[in-house]
């Protein structure tokens, strides 16, 4: 049995404080620029938490989760921009499409051990970029699709200030984190843990690896698709480079790695640290130097793998254990 809290009331108090800090953020962050960044933290934090369900919990590294993100994003802008339908209808559509792609990619690769899943997911990315670029009737080609300006409100997901959108994104993040925590403590979470630690032994212990991985992948794809749908609504624009960018995949992996892949709150913590930092860096570095920010990401990934594979969460849990004598 893992993670007994030092005491339950303390933990609930901590969650309440964290929730209050999140939802009151627009009050104490007065500039709308900061709120916009927080929207990105929530959306990418949620997406990274989704990636972590399969990538972190089961150690099945997906390098193609951008595809689910892009499917969700395109669903919104196509529904709103081309069809004139509600973005709320786009979200389930995006989920269904993403889950279909997830099943198609998981079905052959999860029957194989080894590197096939990572290889296949990476190969998925250029294919969707090609489809989005050349299926012009649907996606507007490389020009992309813009959503026209509609009356602001919850039904159009367009607002005069970024603050209402922030609340929607924050609710998504909280829901996704609840899901991630629930999975971590469910039977599925234990199965994924077993697969991560020792695949052969997990099979001997009666874990159906294929089914467990498929369940995690489907949930993961659905979560990332919803985050993508809201991202599309937030930007009110989508083109192939934005939807199916290698950088998105990279960010999802990196946030989870930095925060700690073994913790349900790890990816969100990573996003909270790295997105503001990235925004700051890209404002400072222009021209050829812009690449240096990305280069730092690469260096960070390698350093994490070599020296701190458990991320900040790992450091935190060591400190916690020393202070309280209990495991986090």
């Amino acid at each position, binding site marked *: 049995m893992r993670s007994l809290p030092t005491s339950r009331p303390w933990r609930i108090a901590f969650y309440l404080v964290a929730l209050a800090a999140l939802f009151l953020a627009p009050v104490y962050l007065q500039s709308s620029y900061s709120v916009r960044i927080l929207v990105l933290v929530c959306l990418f934090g949620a997406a990274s938490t989704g990636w972590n369900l399969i990538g972190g919990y089961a150690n099945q590294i997906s390098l193609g989760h951008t595809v689910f993100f892009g499917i969700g994003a395109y669903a919104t802008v196509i529904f709103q921009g081309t069809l004139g339908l509600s973005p709320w209808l786009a979200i389930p559509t995006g989920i269904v499409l993403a889950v279909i792609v997830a099943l198609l990619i998981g079905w*052959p690769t999860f029957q194989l051990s080894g590197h096939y899943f990572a290889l296949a997911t990476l190969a998925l990315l250029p294919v969707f970029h090609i489809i989005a670029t050349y299926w012009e009737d649907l996606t507007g080609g490389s020009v992309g699709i813009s959503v026209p300006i509609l009356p602001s409100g919850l039904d159009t997901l367009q607002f005069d200030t970024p603050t209402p959108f922030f609340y929607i994104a924050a609710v998504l993040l909280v829901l996704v984190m609840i899901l991630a925590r629930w999975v971590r403590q469910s039977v599925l979470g234990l199965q994924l843990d077993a697969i991560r630690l020792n695949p052969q032994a997990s099979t001997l212990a009666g874990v159906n690896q294929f089914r467990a991985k498929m369940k995690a992948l489907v949930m993961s794809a659905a979560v990332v698709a919803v985050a993508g749908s809201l991202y599309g609504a937030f930007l009110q624009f989508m083109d192939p480079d934005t939807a199916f960018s290698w950088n998105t995949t990279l960010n999802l992996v990196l946030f989870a790695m930095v925060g700690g892949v073994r913790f349900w709150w790890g990816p969100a913590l990573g996003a909270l640290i790295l997105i503001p930092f990235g925004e700051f860096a890209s404002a400072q570095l222009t021209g050829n130097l812009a690449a240096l920010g990305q280069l730092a990401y690469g*260096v960070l*990934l*390698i350093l994490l*793998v070599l020296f701190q594979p458990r991320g900040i969460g790992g450091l935190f849990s060591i400190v916690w254990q020393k202070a309280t004598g209990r495991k986090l």
Partner: protein
Amino acid sequence: MDILNHVAQSVANGLLIGSVYALISVGLTLIFGVMNIVNFAHGEFLMVGMFGAYFASTAFGLDPLWIAPLIGIAGFLLGALVERTIIEPIIKAPQSAQIIATVGLGIILANGAAAIFGNNFLSVKTPYQGETFSLFGLHFAATFVYAAAYAVVMAVLLALFLNKTRFGKAMRATAQNRGAAQLLGIDPKRMYMVAFGLGVALVTLAGSVILPYTLVYPFIGQQYVLIMFTVVVLGGLGSIRGAIIAGLVVGVIQSLSTLLLPSELQNLPVFIVFFIALVLISGGVLSRVRNASVKLKRS
């Protein structure tokens, strides 16, 4: 007759480009075969080779085809250095750590190139760029023929190295059974360093060789990733002979698809082949075919 000619021309083009695909992928499969690591930075090493050749060509007026062996040697040193610093510590780590480390390496290489050369499409000029050869009524661009010739030479050299030299045999022994090889006095760490160096050498050399017919920019590795992985998976992860055959097959499929599809979509059939290969492998079809052919040989 006209259609037949088109198809023949297209198959011939596919074989030329396919031999280059074999050359860029064979290092990836060699590294996997010996070290059991998928090098996700392989496309970026191709880009490094292209930029190396581009730099030599613009700064010193050297032809990429002549400079290619030197680029390959430099690539070997780079690969050996990378293996010692980044790959060696994680050789026994979980697969996920290896994926993240090589992905991180690729990011560093691509963005390092972007910081130095800028995010532009660059190309070199060579005197033979417009030339074509004609044979049996078919026409071949000189740049592709030279690149394919390089690929054939390198395949022969690699086969000689692995089959005829003591070092090559030791490397194959390590690939087959690390523990047994170690018992016979083979140092696996040395084999890993050389295998990784050799894999990078092959792909950087390939980068130099293909430069006369293509453009280079820092993120071009991404474009080749799909093809490399398709070739390596289709050929059977770790099989060098498989990768060479699969490279030719992928080249021909891609080339034939341009008869029906716009050339921008030529990677779509490649992906379909990749996906079918995955389904076949997961269903055990390929291994059954392989076993059947082994039985045929025995009888």
